[in-house]
């Protein structure tokens, strides 16, 4: 369905506002349910703790690390810590 058809159905002539509402709706949809899944890879740098997340990410679904608890270099999900570890590091912030 084109944006024009949406605008006709709700009776608006404000294109910018209609597109902004549509984008907001699409973000909300992906917060509550996962309609569009994407996957991205980042290289691990020795000694670097912090890594940037993709700009367009709405909700994180899973983090997998190559070689986590295995010797086959396969990707496995890693746990999320409830608290920050005692050993601090600001690399990458």
């Amino acid at each position, binding site marked *: *369905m*084109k*944006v*024009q058809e949406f*605008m006709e159905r709700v009776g608006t002539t404000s*294109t910018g506002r209609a*597109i902004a509402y*549509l*984008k907001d709706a*699409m973000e909300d*949809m*992906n917060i509550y349910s*996962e*309609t*569009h*899944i*994407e*996957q*991205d*890879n*980042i*290289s*691990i*740098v*020795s*000694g*670097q*703790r*912090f*890594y*940037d*997340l*993709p*700009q*367009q*990410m*709405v*909700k*994180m*679904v*899973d*983090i*997998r*690390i*190559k*070689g*986590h*608890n295995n*010797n086959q270099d396969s990707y496995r999900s*890693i*746990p*999320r*810590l409830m608290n*920050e*570890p*005692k*050993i601090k*590091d600001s690399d*990458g*912030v």
Partner: protein
Amino acid sequence: MASNKSYAYYVKGDKIALVQRNSTDSNATGESYHEFKSPTEAVTNGIEIEYTRAPWFEYDHITSASLSSSSYLNNSSVDGINYLYYTLVGSNVASTYVVNDYVFIKGIGKWSGLHKIKTSAYAGGNTVVVFNTRVHADNLSNIESGTIYYVVTALEDENSDNYLPF
């Protein structure tokens, strides 16, 4: 045989913090044995992030360009403002990157995402594409890994299609 490594993460602001269990460090003893610290070795494409995104753009998953030492991203100053730009050494593909179109970049963390094309030209034997994306640094290192998807359609005007799954 490679030794087992054990990782965990936490989120701080807009970043993910990756930590590795100290038990893989042969010098770790006593209490520090089970503590977490920053990763101790580099792993190419070691982090795989699965996430949801708003479907207000779609891209052709096949038509892409890989970043390398002769096809890289950096920053360029235009009228005193730094923008992200893409250089392809030795080829003219300027017509592929149309001004005001979008590209979608993956695999480079902070710069992954949608970028709008500001200018596109072939000069001095290289194709140079400048994006509208501002870079708040003067000395960005060449980004030589990642993928640029350059066939992208986005929700922009009345004639745009939406990409909802119904």
